[in-house]
């Protein structure tokens, strides 16, 4: 692979490589799964003259929405990770840090555990959407709360935001623990599966519900590239360079909060993407956000689609939770990377 003087990959070839990988992984993903679909079946679906209604359903209503949702969720998680790492000037920041995951979890477990009692009315009203809507509200709500706490005299303090996030995480964690304690064995199992993440039940209406938020946050993120670059030099430099510091912070938190909230709502908790992908991208292509944001989106989407494909193939006909799969792939890979950079 071509590298320049700073040890990075040349951008042109790297981009082509990433696009190729994204395409290849997508093709592998839609053609593989527990249900056997022949090349003829898929061709038939694409042309539109397939007799086998079930095969058509598997391809069009299961694998395609799963691919689309997987790609969007992976892209949003990776991009949100990149945005927050830039904002906090910390390569270890993660969407979980400002309370998104904790808030979403709390709301989700509340629906699972209290759905039959206190929240029965809500569950009756929202039906299948009760859990995702609650998770979305919980996730973005906690981010908003953290941001309000960090905002004093018209300015947002990044340090306070971080501390507020930690405190909110702890409180939401305690709430989750309390609900877990009062949950029945069966509810507990449901919750455990939710926290391990899954794209298994993705359908087109999930895509329709989550895609607007996901797409908006993906499209808005590149506009933050320049001020976030300035953030890498320090908060005060952002203002010196003529950017509106507070506006940047607000928009970043908004984009990350809504995006991750929507992602968590439809796929449960999926870790590692937001941490590993931007890290990899930065080290292979550079830390400038004009590269990091789109490249993270592409790589994050590809990674999640690939992991999802593996998750449903390795133990077929059963499926591994995708969050688990991500940790299984991401954890050792990240360690390997750390060890390698330590040596060189």
């Amino acid at each position, binding site marked *: 692979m071509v590298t*320049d*003087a*700073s040890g990075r990959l040349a951008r042109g070839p790297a981009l082509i490589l990433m696009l190729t990988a994204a395409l290849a992984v997508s093709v592998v993903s839609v053609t593989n799964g527990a249900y056997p679909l022949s090349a003829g079946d898929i061709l038939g679906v694409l042309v539109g003259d397939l007799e086998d209604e079930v095969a058509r359903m598997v391809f069009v209503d299961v694998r395609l929405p799963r691919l689309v949702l997987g790609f969007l969720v992976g892209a949003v998680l990776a991009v949100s990770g990149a945005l927050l790492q830039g904002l906090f*000037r*910390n*390569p270890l920041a993660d969407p979980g840090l400002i309370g998104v995951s904790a808030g979403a979890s709390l709301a989700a477990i509340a629906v699972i555990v209290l759905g039959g009692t206190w929240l029965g009315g809500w569950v009756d009203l929202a039906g299948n959407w009760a859990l995702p809507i609650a998770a979305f509200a919980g996730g973005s709500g906690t981010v908003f709360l953290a941001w309000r706490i960090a905002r004093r005299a018209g300015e947002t303090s990044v340090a306070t935001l971080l501390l507020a996030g930690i405190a909110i995480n702890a409180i939401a964690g305690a709430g989750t623990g309390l609900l877990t304690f009062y949950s029945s064995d069966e509810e507990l199992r449901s919750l455990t599966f939710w926290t391990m993440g899954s794209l298994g039940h993705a359908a087109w209406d999930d895509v329709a519900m989550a895609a607007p938020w996901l797409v908006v946050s993906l499209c808005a993120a590149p506009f933050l590239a*320049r001020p976030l*670059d*300035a953030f*890498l*030099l*320090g908060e*005060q*430099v952002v*203002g*010196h*360079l*003529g*950017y*509106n510091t507070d506006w940047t912070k607000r928009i970043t938190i908004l984009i990350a909060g809504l995006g991750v909230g929507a992602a968590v709502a439809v796929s449960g908790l999926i870790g590692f993407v937001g941490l590993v992908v931007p890290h990899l991208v*930065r*080290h292979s292509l*550079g*830390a*400038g956000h004009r590269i990091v944001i789109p490249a993270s989106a592409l790589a994050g989407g590809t990674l999640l689609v690939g992991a999802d494909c593996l998750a449903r193939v390795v133990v077929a006909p059963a499926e591994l939770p995708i969050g688990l799969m991500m940790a299984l792939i991401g954890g050792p890979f990240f360690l390997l990377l750390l060890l390698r950079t330590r040596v060189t």
Partner: protein
Amino acid sequence: MLLRVDNASVRLGGRQIVDRLDFQLDAGELLVVLGPNGAGKSTLLKALAGEYKIHAGSVALAGKALKDWTGKCLARQRAVMPQRVEVNFPLTVEEIVRLGRPPEPLSKSQPILEELMALLDITHLQSRLAPGLSGGEQQRVQLARVLAQVWDTRKPVLLLLDECTSALDPAHQQQVFSLLRKLAWQRGFAVLAVAHDLNLAARFADRLLLLHEGQCHSSGEPLDVLTESALAEVYGLSARILNLEEGYPLVVPRDGRCAKDYDTLSWPGLAPQNSSCRQAS
């Protein structure tokens, strides 16, 4: 009059850090702000940079109150170098310098970057990653980034520099300050630099502003400001002032005659035992 500070005060945490300060800075002038630790130098600079609110009084840039400027316009005419900039991310030197530039095609920014990197002696570092650079190298990179911001501005430019040479070796200190003076004299930049090195300030500054407890102790040409009595009053430093024939003063601190006499202390543990350093004598 490019920068006009009228009776400006800055409060931080209920304490008056800058106290009713008056001064002006013209285009083409290099002003060095001196003063002991805690005199309010950095606070003044940050207030001028818009980081702190001016509590009372007023600051005007090019005849327009500072708070009436929009961020974009201000960034084209005023560049700020903070005391410390830490970069934890793998940005290259060239990328950092380019951050100073507004969005523009590469063909426009590239000549500016190359010129600045050459001027600050960092061309050989251009593809190195910032976290691996020495403190002095980082400081030069930041200065290049600050200058890139206003390099092609046609209107008068104000540079606010907070200890921009503190980590540099003597040769680079001289190089940077002579560059600043050249920018002031030849290109009409108004430069406000906070510094600690009295002799560096004396040699290059057109004017000095000596701060003491947030107030102006004295200001004017180096020969007038750097007097034995002023140094004793402001720094508690006992020093001789030599008027060099080059036209600027040289401050030579007196041996063992500091205000706080450390000779009365003894440090038995610190006596050199097995020094392998060569003593220059």
